[in-house]
């Protein structure tokens, strides 16, 4: 029994291995954070742009957007990452692991965010539009100042959940050798012959995403408001 515990500690909580490989995991954490922030920024920006475009452009534009959204909601993010990473050099677009992962996750997040926000825009009561238009606001002004702010607030819970789920996909970058947390941890584990770096990775993910989850909950309550 005591023997088993000692072996477990040696394998997963090995202080020497942790001290040696900790800095690498930290480097990976920096990349994970950069990638996560860049994905949130681009994904939400393009998601909103697409939702606004769909709400104000001719119908055929809407159909194109729906096609894009459906395709990227259907593809597993890992498939998108791998395709971008391996296929783009053939069309003379060199793409690093970071760029490929960022672009793939951003496209997927944009697709989901568009769909969530579109649903939010659809649920803004018609009377809100009529009030805005009756005071002389243009369709675009009513969209930007009246409909979008309400849609954003209504959709915070699903959007926060979806954003967290997709941003956790930064770990998928390890498949195309992106030295983010998981990538660093797996190579460190094989070099050290000891899985303690994976423990560090798990702790690093907690350190990064647990605050995000808590922040998400705070945002949900902060912006929950009754009609």
């Amino acid at each position, binding site marked *: 029994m005591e023997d088993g515990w000692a072996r477990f500690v040696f394998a997963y909580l090995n202080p020497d291995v942790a001290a040696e490989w900790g800095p690498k995991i930290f480097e990976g954490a920096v990349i994970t954070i950069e990638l996560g922030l860049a994905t949130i920024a681009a994904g939400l920006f393009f998601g909103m742009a697409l939702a606004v475009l769909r709400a104000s452009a001719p119908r055929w534009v809407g159909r194109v957007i729906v096609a894009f959204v459906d395709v990227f909601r259907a593809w597993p993010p890992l498939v998108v990452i791998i395709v971008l990473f391996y296929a783009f050099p053939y069309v003379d677009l060199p793409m690093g692991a970071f760029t490929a992962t960022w672009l793939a996750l951003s496209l997927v997040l944009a697709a989901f965010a568009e769909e969530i926000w579109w649903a939010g825009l659809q649920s803004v*009561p018609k009377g*809100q539009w009529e009030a805005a238009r*009756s005071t*002389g*606001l243009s369709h675009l*002004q009513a969209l930007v*100042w009246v409909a979008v*702010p309400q849609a954003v607030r209504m959709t915070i819970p699903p959007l926060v959940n979806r954003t967290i789920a997709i941003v956790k996909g930064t770990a998928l970058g390890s498949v195309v050798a992106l030295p983010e947390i998981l990538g660093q941890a797996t190579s460190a584990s094989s070099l050290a012959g000891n899985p303690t770096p994976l423990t560090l990775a798990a702790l690093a993910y907690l350190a990064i995403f647990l605050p995000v989850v808590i922040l998400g909950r705070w945002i949900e309550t902060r912006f929950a*408001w009754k009609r």
Partner: protein
Amino acid sequence: MPLTGGVVRPLLELAGLRKSYGGLDVLKGVDLAVAPGELVFVIGPSGSGKSTLLRCCNRLEEPDGGTVIVDGENILASGVDLNRVRQKIGMVFQAFNLYPHMTALGNVTLALRKVQGMARAPAEAKARDALAAVGLADKQAAYPIQLSGGQQQRVAIARALALEPKIVLFDEPTSALDPELVGSVLAVMRELKAGGMTMVVVSHELAFARDAADRVVFMDGGRIVEQGPPAAIFGSPREARTRDFVAKLAERS
């Protein structure tokens, strides 16, 4: 108060107004002229087309035929700047339709700033005046959810008035209110009338119609059946349909 046909040019003039939804004719050629300062009260059974009539006046509904002339301008003409014209035509809705994410002040300033391009300070000063005029000077920082229905409707009236419209359309402004809150909204409307505002009111508030309206219009089946001074319409209607409807209304209230 002049009815029509005087020397005064009508502020709102509808001629041959038609509207149908998928084969159902809701307005079958309505003619109506509203003089400056006049309060025209529109009554009629549900489905008679009275709300549609109102909503055609600022093209929230697109008429299928006829003309709508507001302040001398045919607002159905091609190339008309609808967003400019709509500032002349205030509208107050049954469900208030206040923006829930904005304070009372924000609700009133939005169009002043975004449509009329006013800077924040003068827009807010004007909005505060408009809120004071409806008795809500102390509620400018309140969100709609924090206000009673009557207060919300008065904010909505302030939102319309801040744009200095030539005419205000009221679409059942008190129908969604608890009875004890109706009075505050009607009081504001009375003041508005006293100040010379031109108003078209779709409502079932008979007592208000009796003492505040210049003219009552009875609609049924997409047409104006009868119109005249409140005393005539409520006291001695000529048409049987008007009589029936007025009797039913009186029973209810």
